[in-house]
């Protein structure tokens, strides 16, 4: 029974491990299904860019109020939305394409954010903002994460079919439901809210880890969107547990350990999954021979 004790003990004994696990599980519930839609819409890189784009707002909030949860969340949301509007402006009124516009602005945000933080903070503060500190998560952050997850699960449930149809065939959706811009706006808002919530745990650079990586892994195991959403939640939770334990016993940074585990699960899925993986391609081509 020693192994089971080793697996469970840290979560029973230490409140910070309990809170970290709770934060990961709640985050997984809300953001992993959203991640499935991000992969379906081919928006994963855009998500990454948006995750960086929240940094200047967070940094300004940090300058004004220190490391407090709500001002940083609101600051992040505001700069995220400003960045998105600027990308929309640049792609529409200049010759920049979307990918270049996002790259331009996210590098600018990252550099600007780091500069702002360094005006007042030290390198520990900077590390905190860039990579989060999931082991130091407090009740306020948990409330923010829980709120974000409840909101996105609720909205996804209501808009589910609409989002699926729109991902599948946006032109069709536009022709049958003429005003469909608001759905895209709602989806984008959910992304931002989840990023700001995940930022509390994983920082700007890793915020996307629990959203996108489990979704990428899940799509190798099922062709069914509902199942992919469920599976992505399970994978995200598994990665969190393994990551937290690894960080506990291996004295590694927890956020990085969690995201690394999710990444490894993604690679394993890409190599061995049921659908579209390396193994399935090899198997198929052998069959054809």
């Amino acid at each position: 029974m020693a192994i089971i004790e080793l697996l469970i003990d840290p979560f029973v004994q230490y409140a910070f491990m309990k809170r970290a696990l709770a934060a990961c599980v709640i985050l997984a519930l809300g953001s992993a299904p959203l991640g499935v839609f991000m992969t379906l819409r081919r928006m994963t890189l855009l998500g990454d860019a948006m995750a960086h784009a929240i940094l200047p707002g967070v940094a300004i909030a940090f300058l004004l109020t220190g490391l407090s949860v709500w001002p940083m969340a609101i600051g992040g949301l505001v700069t995220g939305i400003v960045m998105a509007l600027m990308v929309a402006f640049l792609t529409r009124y200049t010759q920049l394409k979307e990918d270049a516009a996002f790259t331009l602005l996210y590098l600018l945000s990252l550099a600007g954010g780091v500069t702002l933080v360094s005006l007042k903070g030290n390198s520990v503060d900077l590390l905190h903002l860039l990579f989060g500190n999931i082991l130091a998560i407090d009740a306020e952050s948990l409330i923010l994460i829980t709120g974000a997850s409840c909101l996105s699960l609720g909205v996804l449930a209501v808009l589910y079919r609409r989002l699926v149809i729109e991902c599948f065939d946006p032109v069709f959706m536009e022709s049958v439901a003429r005003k469909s811009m608001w759905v895209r706006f709602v989806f984008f808002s959910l992304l931002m809210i989840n990023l700001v919530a995940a930022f509390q745990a994983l920082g700007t650079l890793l915020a996307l880890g629990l959203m996108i990586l489990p979704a990428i892994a899940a799509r190798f195991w099922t062709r069914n969107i509902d199942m992919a959403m469920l599976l992505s939640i399970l994978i995200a939770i598994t990665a969190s547990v393994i990551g937290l334990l690894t960080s506990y016993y291996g004295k590694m940074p927890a956020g990085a350990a969690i995201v690394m585990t999710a990444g490894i699960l993604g690679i394993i899925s890409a190599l061995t999954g049921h659908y579209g993986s390396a193994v399935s391609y090899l198997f198929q081509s052998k069959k054809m021979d």
Partner: protein
Amino acid sequence: MSALVTLDNVSVRYGRHMALQDVSGTFDAGSLTAVAGPNGAGKSTLLKVIAGAIKPTQGQVTVCKTCMRRTAYLPQTSAIQRDFPINVMQAVCTGFWPDTRGFGAITAAMKERAKTALEAVGLGGFEKRQINGLSGGEFQRMLFARLIVQDARVILLDEPFTAVDAATTARLIKIMLDWHREGRMIVCVLHDLLLIRKYFPESFVLSGKCLGRGHTHELFEQKLLSFDLDMAELLGPAGSRPLSHEHDHSHGHH
């Protein structure tokens, strides 16, 4: 017959490029119209304007009120993600979207209708197949099945026969003629002049502006629609052979 769609001096501009210029005309209930013209003539733009997907820069498009929610638009297939993880049945059922309430649930009766539609396009038994396993022709037939379940009064087709083989074209044309018989209004963009001459009573010839519209045979008489127009210019008098449409067509009705 009453006009379901009226275009009144419609112009569409993309940046500096004028895609449509001062196009006017009406499409009546029960009409079957081909839209012809060279690449870049604004044919797809015309359909999008009627479908409401884009707004005219100038002029006005009037679609009869009862048709607004009963308009089906089939874009060129490139707009759709072919590797999207849903099956044929689910894809066809997306056509019920305007009829669904609240969460967009699909009823048993809708599924039954979708099944019938799939049988009509020759895809009976394909319900559970993933769409990424379909061939180009099967995919196009699936999209026609979705058009069937949309039960639209106004049907807009953008090059529906371009990437499909002759047998599939024949099958799709039969479905289109059934719609025509049922009194639905159809506007179809296509390049195949033989198909236009054979099946479309009316035509709309575009080249940025509207060059002509009316009965198809009259447009052929006026040489606004012509088999040897461009080829003759390219090859000179000695080499002016008919377009390869003859060849396409001979495979059309096996």
